[in-house]
């Protein structure tokens, strides 16, 4: 009896330990969010933050609020991630359809393996690759090369999530399309893809969120700039580069800019993530109706 009681208490103690560790795991999330808001908000609430580009640092004596902003980084992030999405999403969606619709073909195993490996490839190595591939031949850094680097990162994410979403669609829909005499491409693109749309959109959103937060592949491709740039053929600033470059500088005013940019970045990325979660829930509800 005594021994049984001891076993029970041991069990409860371990259960408590497991829950404690779970709480411990969530503490960093709270701390990162809290400090980013705490340190970033004073910069972000300043009205010039979203309208001015960078100003030179004003150390050692700085007016209480500096007028510098991150509009050049915002535009840059938008342009670069936009171009990257235009490259990665169409290729990724069609690739994902291939994996899901022709999953028995032996080649799909290799595509699947390559996507999973590419997801885990260090992003700095992709930056080196694009530098050798697109920057050196053209003799200058460019937003375009940064966008290609990001599209390499996004591609496997889009492929795998599209595959997952298309696989969820029941075979009946496919068969009814084929029974009506539709060719395979119309079945895949006009029947299956719309039915799987929320899942595919989720994948695209997740990939965009990942790309927006990436810094390493942009260091030697998009490189960064100090002014508003619209020309994708030249270097361009992004939010992530702003955080990285300014955080390491000894100027307090620029460090504040970095925190502000970090806050904008985290709001955008987490916002996209939560949005994608909501879209995915609709997909699952939709698929269960089919």
């Amino acid at each position: 009896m005594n021994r049984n009681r001891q076993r029970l208490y041991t069990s409860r103690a371990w259960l408590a330990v497991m829950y404690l560790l779970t709480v411990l795991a969530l503490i960093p999330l709270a701390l990162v969010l809290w400090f980013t808001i705490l340190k970033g908000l004073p910069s972000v609430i300043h009205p010039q933050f979203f309208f001015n580009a960078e100003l030179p640092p004003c150390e050692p004596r700085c007016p209480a609020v500096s007028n510098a902003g991150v509009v050049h980084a915002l535009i840059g992030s938008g342009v670069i991630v936009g171009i990257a999405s235009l490259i990665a999403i169409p290729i990724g969606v069609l690739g994902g359809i291939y994996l899901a619709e022709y999953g028995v073909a032996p080649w799909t195993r290799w595509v699947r393996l390559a996507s999973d490996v590419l997801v885990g490839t260090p992003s700095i190595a992709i930056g080196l690759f694009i530098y050798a591939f697109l920057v050196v031949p053209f003799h200058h850094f460019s937003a375009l090369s940064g966008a290609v680097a990001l599209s390499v990162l996004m591609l496997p994410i889009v492929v795998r999530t599209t595959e997952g979403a298309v696989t969820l669609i029941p075979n009946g829909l496919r068969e009814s399309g084929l029974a009506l005499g539709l060719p395979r491409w119309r079945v895949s693109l006009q029947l299956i893809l719309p039915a799987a749309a929320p899942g595919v959109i989720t994948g695209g959103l997740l990939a965009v969120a990942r790309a927006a937060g990436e810094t390493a592949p942009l260091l030697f491709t998009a490189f960064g700039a100090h002014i508003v740039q619209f020309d994708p053929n030249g270097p361009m600033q992004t939010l992530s580069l702003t955080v990285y470059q300014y955080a390491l500088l000894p100027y307090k005013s620029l460090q504040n800019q970095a925190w502000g940019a970090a806050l904008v970045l985290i709001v955008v990325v987490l916002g996209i993530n939560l949005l994608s979660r909501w879209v995915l829930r609709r997909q699952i509800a939709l698929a269960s109706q089919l």
Partner: protein
Amino acid sequence: MAVRVESRPIPAAGRPRDGFRTVVAVIASVVPVVLAIIVITLVLQALPAIRHFGFSFLTTSEWNAVTDHFGALPAIFGTLFTAFMALAIALPVGVAVAVVLAEPGHTTIRGYIGIGIELLAAIPSVVYGIWALYVLGPWSYEHIEIPVSERLHFIGWFGLPAPRGLFNASLVLAVMILPTLTAISRDVIKAVPRGLKENAVALGATWWETTWRVILPSARAGIFGATVLALGRALGETIAVTMIIGNQYVIPHTIFQPAYTLASVIANEFTEATGTIYPAALVELGLVLIVVTLIVNVLALLLVHSASREARLTA
């Protein structure tokens, strides 16, 4: 008279051939082709350094751009050390969270915990970096490193605390790989056949005995796969580590001192590298990194796949 049924071989899957299939197959092939081109490009770019240093590149510790002497050992050491230390910190926590998440019941609370862990994965690396640099590093310096080194300084590894160094880099990495560990471990634990658990409970095992002696052992292979996958993530992480590791090209004597990793050296020095040997040496660091992560990732994927297939067969 019986109708003679002409027996033709049943066409293989996907046939009759359609043009659409060819088109999407070619498009999907972009992924493996890009992967191959990445590796080939890096090998070609690193060739001057590979020819110049040969195998000694991996075993020497000098990094001197003036005399063109380059050795990767300190960066390899820093990369492996931070990654394994991060794993040691994250593994118990990650598995514990996975066990909690895989439990039945209380789905709302568990759902929120799961979302929280997944958001941890969504936070950009550079945000972890700035947080580590200004918040975690100074805090851990004051409240972990100094007390530990005061009490344990007679053990050589625990001396010389610093706000930026190996230990703090490992802490950040541990947070960053936690979601990978948790997500896969949870799926593997959930895939353990219900029967096994019910048998244990029917024999009178407590919750802990069931978890520790039945569920975790049968999920072992998958959890190991998750660990290796997380290792791959930790090895390749660049920006956050670059901001917190201190960037000293040495093999430090204590776990608190500044060091360097393969990815950080590239991030810091590549845009300033001139000549032929110097950039090539940096690309060779990248090549070492990508080859190691490729091997680790393929290994992890094989482990996770075989574990989930096994679970499906026994279920």
